[in-house]
């Protein structure tokens, strides 16, 4: 379950940023999660609560900002929306797509005190 590892990564960033940004407690975490990032949101929420326990982010709220998948279609020469990695181009049906959006998982913003 690599959502657990992701949450450990998030916690490390929160702890590190606490020194830089001078905060003691994290109330809300906004994550940008792309549709193609391979992250199971339910598992992420579950792991988040478990991993944050006893930390500066215990009980913090997790807000997910979904980002739609996007790819560059080589035959069409334009960006097209994709819901899954193996989707064909909605215009020409080609699979010659290069994903260029919606594969990110980023910590976007925090509400801290």
């Amino acid at each position, binding site marked *: *379950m*690599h959502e657990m*590892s*992701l949450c450990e*990564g*998030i916690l*490390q*960033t929160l*702890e*590190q*940023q606490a*020194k*830089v*940004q001078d*905060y003691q407690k994290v*109330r809300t975490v906004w*994550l940008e999660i792309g549709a193609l990032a*391979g992250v199971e949101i339910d598992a992420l929420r579950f792991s988040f609560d478990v991993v944050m326990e006893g930390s500066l982010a215990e009980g913090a709220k997790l807000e997910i900002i979904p980002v739609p998948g996007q790819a560059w279609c*080589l035959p069409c020469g334009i960006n097209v929306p994709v819901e*899954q*990695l*193996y989707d*064909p181009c909605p215009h020409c049906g080609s*699979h*010659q*797509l290069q*994903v260029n959006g919606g594969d*990110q*998982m*980023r*910590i*976007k*913003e*925090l*509400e*801290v*005190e």
Partner: protein
Amino acid sequence: MCGICGCGEGHVHLDEHEHSHEHDHNHTHSYAAVHSHAPGLSQVRMVQIEQDILAKNNQYAHENRRYFSDHGLLVLNLVSSPGSGKTTLLTETILRLKDEIGIAVIEGDQQTARDAERILSTGVQAIQINTGKGCHLDAHRVGHALEKLQLQDHSVLFIENVGNLVCPSAFDLGEAHKVVVLSVTEGEDKPIKYPDMFHAANLMILNKIDLLPHLDFNVEECIQYAKQVNPRIKILSLSAKTGEGMDNWLAWLKAELQLQFIDYA
């Protein structure tokens, strides 16, 4: 590697390297409370972070990659579901190449050192990493394994990842290529069922092709599925057991190793 680590629970070193510039963009949104000195008011504020969740792993991977490049090492991250024949592919590859090329192996498994023992019996260096509860190898653990191996310059390092077609796709170890192994006993639709891994890999090895006469596996369809999720993927068919197709794989390995000798500006 862990020049940046100090390890234990040390995880404060991220911002010393390439990510440091990102912090320049960090700023706090001063909501009213920030400048308030009124006692008893909790100073809730917003902080913009804009940091990749995998930034820490990627930093370690970057260090590993620099080390590999400095030493002209070809490093391949072998991924697959359990039972695809990765370890047999490795032992057969090693037996054919060890007299001409330096080879070492990092073995990842949840438990036991059985795979490392199989590799050691071929006479090359191997080190086992047990991930315990973890489902994948990460760049940090690989960095530590590197400290324990005596790698010759211009040799090949295979990292045999935990048998898992999901999680290892997200974790860069610093390798030149992910090589995904799929055996014909698994079903031709694996690439579209586990697209992340086939998307992340540069080479796919279709293994155990000696069994094809006994199965309904459709090779053409499988190749088509793999190219659907990754148009650039290269595919080799072979049987590590009978040796069929192994020459192609060995030629690919040698050619990739040659590329590591190139000194880019």
